[in-house]
């Protein structure tokens, strides 16, 4: 394996696993490379299980008919979009405060996936809204907040991509992500206020069908599937970013010289 980037207490100590083992980009790279195929497999299994429960077992909704089944991907996508933003802000802040390169690289790997889930939540929200409420877009509090979340993601990506120097890009992104994270409750509260002000009949995505147990199970399984899927894509992207940003280091040179293998 590569030279440890971590200090060891004894001169010839074998690399033992520590809580910060994967703070070393080389170690993360290797570990992720081994794990990713299994992660994909798990995501697929969970996804298929969720789809089976959602379509074969869950009953038709009385009010919304079959259209309600969109909820099985709409809600997981929305949850993932919010979770990933918080995780992103956490790792970005960690990387900034402790000058931990791997944490910063990981944050940048998270962003596109988070943005994707936000897009998916908006898309499925629109396709759910059209048959249910008659309009392709409803400015209800949660969809509107989801839209603003997409803007926050795009801002983070735009800023980190616009700065060439990796350290400045990572730290600027971290500050932006933190500012965004702190503002999210304020934004959500004000959007909810705005929504109740302007709409007579409060159309809300929370007017979801009363959930039978099978429906909840389908949603849970698909949420887990999305969560595991996000690890697969984010770790793949993180490996790419590690190679891009650590291209000067010895282990990367050796890796490339040894001939490209996945």
């Amino acid at each position: 394996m590569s030279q440890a980037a971590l200090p060891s207490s004894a001169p010839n100590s074998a690399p033992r696993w520590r809580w910060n083992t994967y703070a070393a980009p080389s170690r993360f790279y290797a570990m992720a490379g081994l794990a990713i195929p299994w992660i994909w497999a798990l995501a697929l299994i969970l996804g298929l299980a969720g789809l089976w429960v959602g379509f074969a077992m869950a009953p038709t909704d009385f009010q919304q008919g079959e259209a309600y089944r969109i909820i099985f991907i709409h809600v997981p996508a929305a949850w993932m979009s919010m979770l990933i933003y918080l995780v992103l802000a956490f790792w970005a802040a960690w990387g900034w405060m402790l000058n931990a390169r791997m944490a910063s690289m990981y944050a940048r790997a998270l962003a596109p996936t988070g943005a994707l889930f936000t897009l998916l939540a908006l898309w499925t929200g629109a396709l759910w809204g059209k048959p249910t409420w008659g309009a392709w877009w409803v400015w209800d509090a949660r969809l509107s907040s989801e839209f603003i979340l997409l803007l926050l993601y795009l801002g983070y990506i735009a800023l980190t991509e616009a700065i060439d120097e990796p350290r400045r890009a990572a730290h600027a992104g971290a500050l932006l992500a933190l500012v965004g994270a702190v503002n999210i409750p304020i934004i959500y509260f004000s959007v909810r206020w705005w929504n109740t002000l302007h709409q007579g009949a409060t159309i809300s995505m929370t007017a979801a069908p009363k959930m039978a147990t099978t429906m909840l199970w389908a949603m849970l399984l698909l949420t887990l599937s999305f969560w595991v899927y996000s690890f697969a894509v984010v770790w793949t992207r993180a490996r790419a970013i590690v190679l891009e940003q650590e291209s000067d280091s010895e282990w990367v040179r050796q890796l490339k010289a040894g001939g490209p293998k996945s």
Partner: protein
Amino acid sequence: MSMSLRLLWAVLRRDLRLAARRRVEALLPLGFFVVAAGLFPFGVGPEPQTLRQIGPGIVWVCALLSAMLSVTQMFNGDWQDGSLEQMLMSPRGLLSVVLGKVLAHWLSAGLSLVVASPLLGLLFGMSAQSIAMLCLSLLLGTPILSLLGAVGSALTLGLRSGAALVFLLVLPLTIPALIFGIGAVGAVEAGLPQQAQAHLSLLGALLIMTCLSAPLATVAALRISLD
């Protein structure tokens, strides 16, 4: 983090003097404000009822855009001639500098929007009370825009696409201020003074929170951009 009032005052006077010298440049955001807001009746139609309804929203949004336009210049001038890096050296200097510059920006750019808003209010056929509330809401809101714009401006210091980036980064964060500002005007139009009071209080609270946090974030952003 400590602050030097003398430095703040010095920076404030200097920036205001610079703005006064380049008067046309300083008035461009105001020009944009008026032109942009003035375009809407042509796009939406001259029907007075419609205009009165959408007027406050349009004036506020155009104020947002105008503030973003002018904010990118906040640090660029000093950055280009190297004086910003000098200010980085002294530890208490940076916060004073930021506060001075934000204040200067608000006095030169933000206040002009507040002063111009009654004119636009008339163009949209708003009532006197609505116009008064519009002015008041902008009076509380434009400092928030200057403060948030400072953070964005500091983060994007020296970047090619910095000006456009500031829009994308900062505008979503201004949405709460927009909502409460418009809410106050709407409440006055609906004849609900207490609700207007509530909106103004929330806007005021936002202003205080932003005053306490944005300058520190701006200092952090400047350190990131300059190191």
